């Protein structure tokens, strides 16, 4: 009887070990490619254009110490970059931040473009876990475009939420407002 337990456990162990081995190998051989894909998708030309029209690249912000300061003081802040056009002219700031109010599936992560004059140039969702078909509509231009042109000097309070996805819309707004408060506090 005892022997059969050892045999069963052994076979199960063998299956698990082989599966783990295959997955470990595969994970190792694909992880670089996956990281590259993700990085490229996050700053594809469409994303750049929607966040800061005319930009071709997001560069790291020159004052790295300031970025560190913001990081330590604002828990939802991810990164601050400078958008540049084809001839390397600086077009404005790009704040990458999570929302401060959770949506239906947790925090949403956004790029918020802000011009040197303090106007929002565009917003793009980097990642979210909202319900597909409902909350996910906050990622569509018909919703995000309403923020372009708004003042980044004061918190936005009135906006058109998506019907049936109020929670996701509010989460989205809180991320935009977090970017605004970062701009007001550190960049203005």
């Amino acid at each position: 009887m005892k022997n059969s337990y050892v045999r069963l456990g052994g076979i199960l162990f063998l299956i698990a070990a082989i599966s783990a081995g295959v997955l470990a190998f595969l994970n190792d051989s694909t992880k670089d490619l996956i990281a590259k894909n993700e990085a490229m998708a996050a700053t594809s030309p469409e994303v750049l254009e929607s966040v800061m029209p005319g930009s071709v690249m997001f560069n790291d912000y020159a004052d790295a110490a300031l970025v560190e300061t913001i990081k330590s003081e604002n828990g939802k802040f991810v990164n601050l970059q400078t958008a540049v056009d084809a001839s390397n002219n600086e077009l404005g700031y790009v704040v990458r931040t999570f929302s401060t109010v959770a949506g239906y599936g947790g925090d949403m992560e956004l790029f918020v473009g802000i011009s040197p004059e303090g106007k929002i140039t565009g917003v793009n969702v980097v990642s979210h876990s909202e319900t597909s078909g409902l909350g996910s509509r906050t990622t569509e231009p018909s919703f995000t475009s309403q923020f372009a042109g708004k003042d980044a000097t004061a918190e936005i309070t009135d906006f058109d939420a998506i019907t049936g996805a109020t929670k996701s819309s509010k989460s989205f707004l809180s991320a935009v407002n977090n970017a605004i408060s970062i701009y007001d506090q550190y960049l203005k």
Partner: protein
Amino acid sequence: MNKLDIFKNGITKENPILVQQVGMCATLAVTTSLLNGIGMGIAVIAVLTGSNIVISLLRKFIPDEVRIPAFVIIIAAFTTIVDLLMHAYTFALYQALGVFIPLIVVNCLILARAEAFAFKNGVVDSIIDGLGMGAGYLVAMILLSSVREFLGNGTLFGINVLPASYEPMMIAIQPPGAFIILGLLIGLVNYLSRRKKA
């Protein structure tokens, strides 16, 4: 049972969603739009056929007493393999379907086919069973998701098919609407299949 019967069985007599009603959680959750429904259907066909092959090949090696944990390990491994490969090599496809891949692990349809078919039949039959069941799943997903997107959003594949004056029936794409529409669909299928018999 000949090969064609095995294939057709999954689409009609034992349709996983409309007749067997297995794997409901993922079905109800993702059918908010036609694109989602088709994506999930295709992902299920891939993993179901793959896991059927592996389990059928190993059916003499896996002892009866530990078959369920063995199935779970194999299905989970297979799902992760598909996830990693798509993420690395077909990134555009992954962006559209990526969210559904991990959901496949909890789809009991795959476990049910491993237990009921692949563990008792040869490799070729298991492949056909996987494709047939997967096709049945896909057909049901298309039906359910197109009705839900049409009523709940007035669109199909995200394109407006109804005049702008149409007020979307929000409940159709919310979770309660999924139950209601699925129930109506199953009722319709039962009605048609009974009438055919009579």
